[in-house]
C-alpha cells in the first residue's frame, strides 16, 4: 500500500518485532490508553517497550534554542523534529524491533504528517522525509470532536506554549484562538490520514474501560502475542 520505499533493514525489523502506535489530538486520551495497553502486556508477561515523542539528548538543545528564540520556520521546524525522530528511531525503535519486541509508540510519524501539513509544508516532501521509518502494524487513532479535545487542553493548562498554540503561523494573536484554529487543521489532516493509512479508529468519547477493551481485542486479533512471551 505504501508508495515509497523502505530499506531492507526496516522490512526485516517488521518481521521480528511489532510496532503499535497511538495517534490523536492533544487531549484525545491516547496516552492513557497506551499506558493501559502497556501495563496489560507487561503484566501478561510479554516483551514490550514504550517510546514517546520527546526529544533525544543530542537534538534537544537545538530544538529548545530554536523555539525559544523563535528561529524556526515551518521547514526547519519540520526538519529538526525529523532529525530528533531519526535519532530516537535509529538508536531505540529500530534496534528494539529487530530484537523482537512489541514496541508501543505514543505518537509516531503521522503526528509529523499532520502537524507539518498544518504548517503548510509540502505533504509529499514530509512523507518522503520520514520514509526511512517502518509503518506500524497497528495505528490506533483516538477520535474525539475537536471542541472536546481543545476544551480539555484549554481547561487543564493555564498557558499554552508558543509553537503548541501554532502562534508562529499568525492565525490569531490570541493563543487560545490560535490553538483552536491550529488544532482544527490538524484534526482534518488526521481524518485524511486515517483513511490513507488504515488507522484503527477508536471513538474517544466512549468510557476509558470500553476503549481499552477494544484496543486489547484488536491487539489480540492482529498480533501473534505468543511470539512475544517472556520465557521463565
Amino acid at each position: 500500500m505504501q508508495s515509497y520505499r523502505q530499506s531492507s533493514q526496516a522490512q526485516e525489523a517488521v518481521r521480528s518485532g511489532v510496532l503499535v502506535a497511538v495517534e490523536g489530538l492533544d487531549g484525545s486520551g491516547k496516552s492513557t490508553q497506551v499506558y493501559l495497553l502497556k501495563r496489560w502486556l507487561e503484566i501478561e508477561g510479554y516483551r514490550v517497550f514504550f517510546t514517546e515523542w520527546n526529544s533525544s539528548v543530542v537534538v534537544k538543545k537545538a530544538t529548545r534554542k530554536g523555539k525559544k528564540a523563535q528561529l524556526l520556520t515551518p521547514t526547519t521546524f519540520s526538519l529538526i523534529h525529523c532529525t530528533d525522530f531519526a535519532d530516537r528511531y535509529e538508536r531505540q525503535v529500530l534496534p528494539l524491533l529487530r530484537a523482537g519486541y512489541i514496541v508501543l509508540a505514543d505518537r509516531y510519524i503521522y503526528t509529523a504528517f499532520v502537524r507539518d501539513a498544518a504548517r503548510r509544508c509540502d505533504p509529499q516532501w514530509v512523507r518522503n522525509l520520514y520514509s526511512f521509518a517502518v509503518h506500524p502494524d497497528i495505528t490506533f487513532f483516538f477520535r474525539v470532536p475537536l471542541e472536546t479535545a481543545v476544551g480539555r487542553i484549554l481547561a487543564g493548562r493555564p498557558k499554552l506554549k508558543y509553537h503548541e498554540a501554532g502562534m508562529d503561523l499568525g492565525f490569531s494573536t490570541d493563543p487560545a484562538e490560535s490553538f483552536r484554529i491550529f488544532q482544527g487543521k490538524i484534526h482534518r489532516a488526521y481524518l485524511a490520514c486515517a483513511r490513507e493509512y488504515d488507522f484503527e479508529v477508536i471513538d474517544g468519547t466512549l468510557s476509558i474501560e470500553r476503549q481499552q477493551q477494544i484496543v486489547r481485542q484488536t491487539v489480540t486479533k492482529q498480533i501473534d502475542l505468543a511470539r512475544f512471551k517472556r520465557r521463565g
Partner: protein
Amino acid sequence: MPGARRAAPRRKRFYGTPPPGVSAADLKGYLIVIEGADGSGRSSQTRLLTQWLEQNGHATVNVGLRRSTLVSAELNAAKRGNVLSRTTMSLFYATDFADQLENVMIPAMRAGFVVLADRYIYTLMARDLVRGGDPEWVESLYGIAPVPDLVFLLRVSPRRLVQRNLEKNLELDFWESAMDVAISRDRFDSFMAYQKMIAREFTRMEEKYGFYPVNGNRTPTAVAATIRSRVAELVH
C-alpha cells in the same frame, strides 16, 4: 561599471517544491556555488571571488556548511562525538542547510545579492550516497534548494588532496577520512579510498546538475582566473 550592459538574471527555479511561503519568481540576484573536497582550495577561491565581486560593485553574501544559527554548535558537538546514526546526521545537516537557506540565502536573493556558497547540497548528497543513502530520499530532501546559476567543481587529485590536508592540519581529519564508514583502520588508506568514492559521486552528478569543472591542481591565481572569466559571463 559605466557603459556595462546589465543582463537580466536567469529565471530561478527549485529542484523540487520551494519551502512554504517562497516563490521562485521573487528571487533575483545570483546563486554561485563552489564545490570541492577539503583541501581543494574552495575557501581561498570563495574569498578571492567575493573580493572580485565586491570590487565590481556586487553585494555578496557567503554561506557554507555548519554555519546556521540554529544548529551549527550542536552539529559540531555531534561530529566530535560521532554519536549520530546516518539518517540522523543527514537530517541534522539538512536542518543546518534549511536554516541558512530561509534566513540568509533567500532574503539575500530577494534583495538582489550574489550568494556565494562554499559547498552546497551536492556535498551533502554525495556524503549520504557513499554511506548507502537512498538517492530518491536525498533528492527529495533537498528539493527545497534553489537551482544555482553556476556550480564550480574544483577537481584535485586525491594525492594532491592528501598533501594539502597534511600541510594544513598536520593530520588527516576523522570525517574527511570517513573513519565512521570503517573502510579501513588505516587513516591514509581510508582517506584515499573515501576521496575517490566522493569524486565518483561528483562525476555522476556533474552532468545531471550541470557542474562547471575546474582543474584545481593549479596555482590559486590560475584557478581564480578561470572562475572569474566564467562568472563575468553571468554577472555583468
